[in-house]
């Protein structure tokens, strides 16, 4: 294997890793806040990106404004999902299985709605740096891929800071970990749950806006993204949102180096083998233990 191939695999792993991580982060945040495995997360990614496509093409808004509107759209969609579907179920004391089933149904319905509105076409967003590439040790990397990696890292660090150092973040964590205790201290747990869905929706939309310049977005890719994000979240430790980042990057790195070192036909075999191994050795995921200890 040449140095160029190694660097190419490294950046492919990092790029895909942050995509998986951002989807997984949304799933883990929502799971932590509501104990719901949010199958809709992939649809948040698709809808967030398509909102920006629509605002750029139809309304002619400047790119940064359209991107911000896409993230706000994801935030509103996440809030709506919680208020309209999850909250009534939790109020009626529905179990986790019922929440999962509703989430699967919503994912299918949202995908159909996207098909109805946007059609079956594939959509692209303009890339940061256009189609420019940089040469790194013989490997060719898109400038936008570097932007995605940097933005993903910034979002993760920002989220870690938010959960540890802001009153709202701490309240959300408290409401998720000990709802009764949080209520006693005056935290509105229902509102906190809505906010976790809003945050999940915004993260999903941000992931969509970052990835759409690299790969086309279409109505049927939501579920596949959810599955990768879910794998990342579980591998990292579903109880610790930041574990999804470690999980996502690990899965993508194994895929990329598996392709380069062995054979592309077995890409998923490597990734799933690592997932099984980690789950057997660390049933709470890579960072699950820290989360249980309050980290």
């Amino acid at each position: 294997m040449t140095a160029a191939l190694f660097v190419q695999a490294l950046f492919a792993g990092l790029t895909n890793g942050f995509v998986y991580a951002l989807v997984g982060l949304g799933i883990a945040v929502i799971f932590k806040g509501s104990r719901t495995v949010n199958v809709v997360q992939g649809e948040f990614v698709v809808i967030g990106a398509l909102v920006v496509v629509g605002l750029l093409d139809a309304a002619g808004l400047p790119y940064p404004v359209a991107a911000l509107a896409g993230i706000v759209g994801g935030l509103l969609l996440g809030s709506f999902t919680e208020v309209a579907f999850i909250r009534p179920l939790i109020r009626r004391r529905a179990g986790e299985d019922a929440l999962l089933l509703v989430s699967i149904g919503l994912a299918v319905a949202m995908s159909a709605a996207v098909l109805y509105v946007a059609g079956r076409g594939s959509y692209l967003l303009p890339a940061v740096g256009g189609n420019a590439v940089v040469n790194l040790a013989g490997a060719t990397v898109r400038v936008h891929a570097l932007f995605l990696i940097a933005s993903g890292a910034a979002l993760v660090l920002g989220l870690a800071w938010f959960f540890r150092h802001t009153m709202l973040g701490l309240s959300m964590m408290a409401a998720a970990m000990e709802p009764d205790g949080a209520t006693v201290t005056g935290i509105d747990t229902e509102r906190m749950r809505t906010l976790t869905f809003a945050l999940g929706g915004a993260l999903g939309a941000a992931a969509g806006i970052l990835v759409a310049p690299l790969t086309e977005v279409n109505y049927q890719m939501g579920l596949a993204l959810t599955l990768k994000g879910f794998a990342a979240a579980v591998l990292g430790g579903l109880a610790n949102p930041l574990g999804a980042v470690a999980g996502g990057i690990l899965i993508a790195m194994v895929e990329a180096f598996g392709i380069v070192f062995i054979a592309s036909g077995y890409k998923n075999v490597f990734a799933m083998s690592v997932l099984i191994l980690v789950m057997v050795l660390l049933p709470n995921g890579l960072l699950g233990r820290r989360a249980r200890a309050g980290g």
Partner: protein
Amino acid sequence: MRRISCGARRRRVLLLIAGMALSTAGAASAPARAQATSGEPVTIGAILSVTGPVAGVGQPERDGALLAEKIVNASGGVGGRPLKLVIEDDASNPDTAISKATGLIRSTKVRALIGSSNLPSTVAIGGLTDPIRLPQAALSGIGPAVEAKRTCVVHLLAPQELNARAALTYVRDALKAKRVGLLHDSGYGQAVANSLKAVAPEYGVELAQVEKFEIGATDVSAQAAKVKNAGVDVVVIVASSATPFRNVHDLRIGVPVIGSIASSSYDYVRAMGEAAEGVIFPEFLIAEDPLPHQVKFVATFKEAYGRLPKNYEAAGWDAVNLLAKVLAEAGPEADNAAVCAALRKPLRGVLATYDFSAPDMTGLGLSSFSYSQVKNGSFVRLPLPAR
């Protein structure tokens, strides 16, 4: 539900009768524009993959088929009787295809069946049509050995080996290339890749690097990097997605790229963006520069839909037109076997000239292919490679 008053209903009926009288008078005075049809409709069923992973194929086929139904009826229908096309979506799933085909055969009592858009569904519903000798026009190339025995199932697209040979012919004769890098997906791409591996030695071509990725993969840059690293003369991409084209372009490999019919639609070319420029496609219909027998279809389609058609729209159109023609020839009282026998002969379509009496139920050859290259988002006809 909206309620309609008696008065309003009566006015609507009167308007309808007046409209029918006017349209009949119009038809009588202008027979060249439209010919009236009468009697029981002749029903053809179609199982198309309008949703699911193969929707990129099934939806254009539906557009072509619906337009053909309209034009056939405007031209006198099937022997004077109206043609009725009943389309069902198999969601790219063979199990759904079987249940939808069963309904069309038993309840709707179709005279012939079109479809499916994907090979597994085609093979599945062939198990229903063949025992009752119901003519079936499949919108896929012939697949497993069992299909060679199903002599009432004809195929409107090329078998995978022919697609492979079309690409290799261009590699050898036009590009004079020896070392090929192959990127393919795990669905349709896998089937073509198997054929490419089998016949490449006949063309003196080495598949220097073969890389696979799953359908819907969002990034195949690691696979593309391996292809680049192998030092190939040409890259062949067999997939129904724009992603591999974009990843190969990003790596600036600097060699020609050959695509496949599955990614030759305008939608995919748009999704490829800058990466589409220069890509070569072995295909059948180049709407910007159609062959003489394709000109009328291209103009009719553009007038109806406001856009240019590609291969799958033409396949849907051909399926309806050829079945309508054969049903008219066989006559209204002909049984399934008689219609099936009438279908198994050379027939001229828009996509190609078929010979459904051939062992592969298609009769397509390498001479049926055209080669195009994308320039500024349009397809430009390339000269046929000369040996």
